[in-house]
């Protein structure tokens, strides 16, 4: 994503979760596929959007694996989680994923999204920006 300056937002998630689709929905340029290590990926990024395929039998395992990885590589960056391909009444599935986060003391947003929808991907980005903004306000306010 390019603005006046540059900011790197990491889209993480298992194969088929919709990362390339998401970036294509937002980017001015076609996505370039490459492989880098997680360490390089997270370096300099203020936040991460994690995508999980909600219909996958391994959704919870995938989420837990990526949470472990992100906790190691970018422990302080805020995280927003998009769960794709869930039915509209999938509150229980989202609750299950949120419970997995809570067990790790992570208070990240978990949203059911359509990864093909630009509006939904912008919602994830907007939420990440709002969290960053609040953190920035906290820092400017100093200790209360």
């Amino acid at each position, binding site marked *: *994503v*390019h*603005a*006046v*300056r540059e*900011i790197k937002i990491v889209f993480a998630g298992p194969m088929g979760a919709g990362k390339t689709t998401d970036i294509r929905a*937002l980017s001015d340029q076609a996505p370039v596929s490459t492989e880098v290590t997680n360490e390089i990926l997270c370096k*300099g990024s*203020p936040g991460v959007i994690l995508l999980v395929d909600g219909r996958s039998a391994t959704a919870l395992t995938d989420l837990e694996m990526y949470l472990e990885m992100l906790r190691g590589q970018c422990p*302080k*960056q*805020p995280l927003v989680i*998009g*769960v794709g391909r869930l039915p*509209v*009444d999938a*509150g229980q599935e*989202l609750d299950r994923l*949120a419970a997995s986060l*809570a067990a790790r003391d992570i*208070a*990240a*947003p*978990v*949203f*059911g*999204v359509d990864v093909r929808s630009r*509006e*939904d991907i*912008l*919602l994830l*980005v*907007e*939420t990440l*920006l*709002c*969290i*960053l*903004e*609040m*953190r*920035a*306000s*906290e*820092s*400017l*306010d100093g*200790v*209360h």
Partner: protein
Amino acid sequence: VETTLYASRRRDRRIAFVKSPAPQDAKVAHAMQLLTSMLWAFKGTTRSAWEIASPEEADVIVFHADAPDGRLPEWQASGKLALEIATAPQPGAIGSRTLVYPFRAARAFALLEQLDAELESAAALNYAMSSHTGEFKRPAPGEESWSFVDALRTLRAYSGGERWWVVYREAEPVLWVKSGGVVYLADPAVVESLRQGTLQLHEMRMQSGAPPANGAQLRGGSELIWFAAYYTSNRLAVALSDSARYRIARWPNFGAIRPPVAQIRVVAALSARAVDLGEVASLARIPVTDAARTLNALSALGLLLPAESDTESVVTARAPATPTVNALGALLRNIRRHLGLGA
């Protein structure tokens, strides 16, 4: 004594076996017969007493997955539960009310107990909703009516069931909420007026009924209660206080709600630390009235928690911020402009 008490709590449940008019293979007949035999074998062991009855009288309708009866949606809308018998492996995940032939007695027994619990929950919901059906309270000038939000809260407090609750404006059905409040149906114009705050919910009435036949798209129930609560009042609801500090239990599923950015900012502020109404309005850069509305919406979803002590907010506020974010303010504004997001 325990036996007597248990027996006194036993209910009569009625179950109907619906034979499809279409020709069926022998497996279907065997599957239905197997369940009938099991019902006899289970007598006296299940929590409730199960009797075979007609579909009109039944609490549970048993049907074959490949040839469901056309009256099934109508029966389900009236509160009857459907039990599906399948005679071939299911392509997707097996439904929670499905028996795949040949099935074990233990599976059938567990399913009957599950259906019994669901019927009990539905009866409790019907009782709880009895005070919310009919006309909603019309507010006096200067007052607000929380009747509709309270009715939705009650629906969401009970899980499951196939019953629908219809919200009427005069004699016209406007929207349909499923038991459990997890989903609702409405046409796009009604959804838009709900989201804009122009739907006069306090002028409506609610009662149980059938879902619309036109196959409108299901929407997340959290959207309905969020915007209903948001537009009910620009002051905090009576259960909340201007001076108390709040935080969120967890984020709402904004994928279903799709709120404007100002409301996302409020929730982001409440996720960062415990704050009071004035502080959250200041952090989110919105009027206090808009912040109060968002707190009301969070509260209606059961996601707003009072801070346990003053210490909690101080400790959270002292959590280390990401070192790079201090310089982010202008950059975030540029990104928003670039992506066409709200200011």
